[in-house]
Every structure is written in C-alpha cells, then in structure tokens.
C-alpha cells in the first residue's frame, strides 16, 4: 500500500511514456504525409535501418567523445581539483566558489547565448579579442574546433556540480587519517593517491553515474550553439534524435534511436551502480 503513490508516479511518468516511445518506434509515424494520419506498425524495421545508418553511428561516437572529455575527464578532474584547492581558507575563497558554481545555475540556453557571443567569429567575438592580445588572428571557433568548443563549454558548466559532490566526499574523510599518514611519512601526493583517491571512489562512481547519464541527454546547450553542425560535427545522439524527429519529421525513427539510447543509458547506469555496490 505504501508503494502505491510511487508506483502510480512511476507508471505515469516513466513506464507509460517509455511504452509509448517503444510502440512509436515500431511504427512509421511521421509529422507529414500519409504516415502522419495513419501510422503503420512496421515491427523492427526502424531498428534494422538504424544498424546501417552511418549518421547514427557517427553521432554515437561523437556522444562518446563528448561524454568522455567533458564529463568524465574535464568536469571530474577540474571539479576534484577545485574541491581540494577550495578546502583551504583564503581571502578570495568565496569569490572563486561563486565563479565555479554560477555556470551550474544558468539555464542551458542562456549559457549557450553567453558562449555564442564569447565564441563569435570576427574581431568582435570576446575570445577573439582576448587572443588578439597575444597576436593570434580571429578564429571561427565553432566552425574550426566545434567539438572541442562544446566540450569546453560543457566542462565550464559542470565543474560546479562535480566540485560540490567531491567536496562532500572529501569532507567525509577524517583529518586524523591525513595526520596518521603524515606520521607514517606520506608526502602530499602519496596521501592523495593512497588515502584520498581510494576513499573517494564511491563518490566518484556516484558522480559518473549522474553525469554520464545527464551528459548523454544534453540537448539545449548544444542545439542553441551549433544545432549539431557544422556538417554534423557536434551532432550528439540527443541532437540527432531531434533532427530526425522534427527536422526530417520521422517520429517513429526518432523514437527508435531514443529507445536505443535509453538502453545504453540503462546499461551504463547498471554498471556504475554495480560498481558502487549500493542498493538503489
């Protein structure tokens, strides 16, 4: 009885929409043409098509690099570093804290607009003005280095969250352990490697679980910056789904991609949860 409310919520907001998506993925539902009115059940045709769809595989690879470099490497490493540096008391600490945390509070589209002006081509782009001091010619950042740029923007956005989580992980490690390690002759680096890192593993996995799944699903930030372009260079899966569903009007096919993505996320999530060895 006690689980009834959560069962209803689960059904209304997770199971039912998933069911609809899975059903839709087995139809040729479209936004225009005859299939818009009378979608036909076509079984696994969308999925077989997906397997030979090079654009889909390319978008998966792009998503992989995007998640790896922005969430797993960039945000995690910089978030951990910030958490460690900002543990000490110093005069400008609240200032740095605010700078790191703020991007997190900004909505994705707003962040994208800020970065559009930052990365704008021509000599009036903010970044171009900055590099001009070093004698570098104006660049078309989002055209020349599109994937690197959206990775940078996403790192900027996510450090704060990583820092908060790492901070809570760090503060759970007793100061006495570090003192004991000092008495045992550990250098700062040894203490980090042999005490901090191992004790932070559960926190790191928790972070990876959350950030991998949310980063795979990122849409607004990139869509507003590049729309997946130029020439699909930043078309991560979320953008590809949108482009297929609402650009090419193939809702059935878009749903099939979404279902595959959901399965990927579930597999990755299960892997992390197993690694965490916690009950979820």
């Amino acid at each position, binding site marked *: 009885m006690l689980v009834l409310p959560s069962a209803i919520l689960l059904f209304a907001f997770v199971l039912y929409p998933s069911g609809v998506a899975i059903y839709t993925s087995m139809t040729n539902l479209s936004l225009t043409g005859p299939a818009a009115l009378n979608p036909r059940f076509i079984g696994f045709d969308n999925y077989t098509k997906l397997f030979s769809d090079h654009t889909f595989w390319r978008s998966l690879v792009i998503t992989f690099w995007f998640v790896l470099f922005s969430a797993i490497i960039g945000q995690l490493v910089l978030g951990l570093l910030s958490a460690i540096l900002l543990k000490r008391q110093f005069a400008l600490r609240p200032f740095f804290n605010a700078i790191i945390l703020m991007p997190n509070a900004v909505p994705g589209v707003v962040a994208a607009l800020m970065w559009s002006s930052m990365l704008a081509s021509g000599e009036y782009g903010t970044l171009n003005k900055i590099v001009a001091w070093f004698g570098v010619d104006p660049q078309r950042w989002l055209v020349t280095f599109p994937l690197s740029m959206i990775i940078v923007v996403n790192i900027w956005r996510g450090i704060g969250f990583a820092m908060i989580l790492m901070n809570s992980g760090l503060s759970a490690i*007793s100061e*006495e*352990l570090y*003192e*004991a*390690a*000092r*008495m*045992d*002759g*550990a250098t700062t680096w*040894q203490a980090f490697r*042999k*005490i901090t890192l*191992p*004790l932070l593993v559960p926190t790191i996995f928790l972070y990876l679980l959350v950030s991998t799944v949310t980063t795979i699903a990122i849409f607004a930030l990139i869509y507003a910056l590049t729309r997946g372009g130029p020439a699909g260079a930043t078309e991560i899966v979320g953008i590809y789904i949108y482009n297929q569903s609402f650009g090419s009007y193939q809702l059935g096919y878009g749903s099939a991609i979404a279902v595959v993505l959901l399965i990927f996320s579930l597999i990755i999530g299960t892997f992390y949860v197993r690694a965490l060895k916690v009950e979820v």
Partner: protein
Amino acid sequence: MGTIVLNQVRKSFGGHEVIKGADIRIEDGQFAVFVGPSGCGKSTLLRMIAGLEDISGGEFLLDGKVMNDVSPEQRNIAMVFQSYALYPHMTVAENIGFSLDLKKTPKAEIKRRVGEIAERLQLTPYLNRKPSALSGGQRQRVAIGRAIIKEPSVILFDEPLSNLDAALRVQMRAELQELHRSTGATIIYVTHDQVEAMTLADQIVVLKDGQVMQTNDPIGLYKEPENTFVAQFIGSPKMNLFPAKVESVAGDVVRIRTDAGWPIDLPAIEGLRAGPVQLGIRPESLTLAAPHEPAEIETRTVLSERLGMETYISFETGGEPGIARVPGDHSLPSGTPIRLAVDPSACHIFDNDGRAIRSQSA
C-alpha cells in the same frame, strides 16, 4: 635514544595561548604520562612533539637536537591516535605496513615484518580484515602495530583507552606496559584519568590550563603534592582541604586549628608561621575512633557509601563536606555523630595560594 626536553614551550591558537611555557624533561626509555583535566592542553602538547602542530615559542629537543622545524616523519616519533585513525580501505596488514610501503620497502620484507608485529600483537588471524570488521581492542592493537613497525624512539599515545570498556582497559594497560618493556622506547601517554596515570607511569606530568603543575613519579606525587591542584587531582576520593589557622608553634609541635574548631597537632615544619593555611588530609588518612580512643575530629555524618570492604563517609565541616575512607563496612545513617582520628604524619599544609609548605627534609 629518546630523551625529550621541552624548554618554555608555548602554543597559541589565533592569539589565544593554550600552552603557557611548559618545561618538561623525559629521560630515554621512560614511560611518561601527561595527565590533567579535559581541555588543559595535553593533546596540543603531544601534537607539538609529534610535529603535527607548530611550536609557537620555546624549544623541543630530542636527544639534544632542536626539533621545532623538523617534519613529523623525520623525528622518529610514532603516534597512536585517540580514535585510532586506521585507514578504513586497507586491511590490517596494509595498515601496519603502510609506512614501509611508502618508503618502497620490498614486498617480501614488508610481509615478514608485518608478520612479526602481528604475531607479537596477536593479530595474525585478522591480517586480511578491514578495520571495520575488528573489535575496539583489536583496532587498538593495529594502531599500536602501525606505530611500532617504524621502530620509533618515542611513541605517543593520546587517550588510547578512552574508547574501550573497563575490563578491556585493564587488560590493555598490562599490554602497554609489556610493550614498553619489549620496545624500550620512550613513551608519552596522555590521559585525563589519574588511575591510568598512576598505574602506568614512571613519571607523571600534571597539567592545568596549559601549565605544568608538577612532575614526579606516581608515589612522589601522591605523597608530596606541591600544590592543592595536584593534591586533589591525584588520589580518589580527592584530598580534603580544610581552611585552618596555625595557632602555635611550640618546640617540635605545631598546633593547627581548622575553621570548624578541630585542633590538630603536627610535627614542626620549617618556615611555618602563625596565620591562615589550608590543611590537606587524604580520606584514607582518617580513621574511625572507638569511644575510648583519642580523636581530633568530632562531627556528624552526611552520607555513607558502603562498598563492602570499605566505607566512604561524608561528614559535616561547616563548609563543603569532608570525606573519610575507612576499612570495613559501617552502617552510619545521615546525622550519626562520629569521631575521626587523624594520622599527623600524613597531613599536608598549603598556603593560601595553594602552594605546599613542607620541611626540606620531609
């Protein structure tokens, strides 16, 4: 070698001085105990010796060498923390061998030495367990193992038994003494428990508010406290202090009269002049007098605590109740008139500032 000397050592935390010029000398191989009430600065003093806390003023010398600015791992000093501070993600073996591992000692050598230590501390069956799967006493032993594997010349203990139950404490006290014998290391042991201090120490340093009140061996502290703080801190129940006056000094005898009106004759003490003093009498130096026997104190009971083999009798003094610790079981309801005899040779005289007045010969 581990001779420790503190010269006028001071420590301030942000302008607040918590150690106010400590002079302490601990000989090589001694078992020294720092004892004092909670918050008096024992841990701070220990942590300065360990190198975990900077020394704000004065000098700390180890075997004649100034150690103020030497980093902790180069002092050849080990420390056992109050909450043990075992590394939770490492096994018992890894905990004990951690310092060797950091020094890149060959694996085989680490294994051998950890094995020896574990054997000595009866930890062999637990070598592959994590600390969370150990009892309090076993964790304590792991912490000790982690300290002694470094073969330090000095081992510091910060209230190591405070997390253990009473029976285990008695057992660990015996093990610590055995450890002291077998390692020959200088030990500095911090506690707020005077019984622990008395039973373990070669030398006790009594601290109060960041100052050394007295340093002596346990029996010396008990017999010749230099001030009322030490007098009342060492011994249980604590020493009675009666406000009194020196009435007369006649030849070899001093007559003291307490404010409650009891006359007490003591052997003469050099430098004692007529005037107000505090008379200190330990509860165990008072005995119940039979009706025909002489007795200095005539009063009534306030309360008696019967322990079977002995009885603690609280009695009226006009101020704070006094206490007598007498052998045997006595049923004395509150208000019973009693007579107590004083052992004059066991009395202590303190001036009004609480300093002991004592003959040099005594």
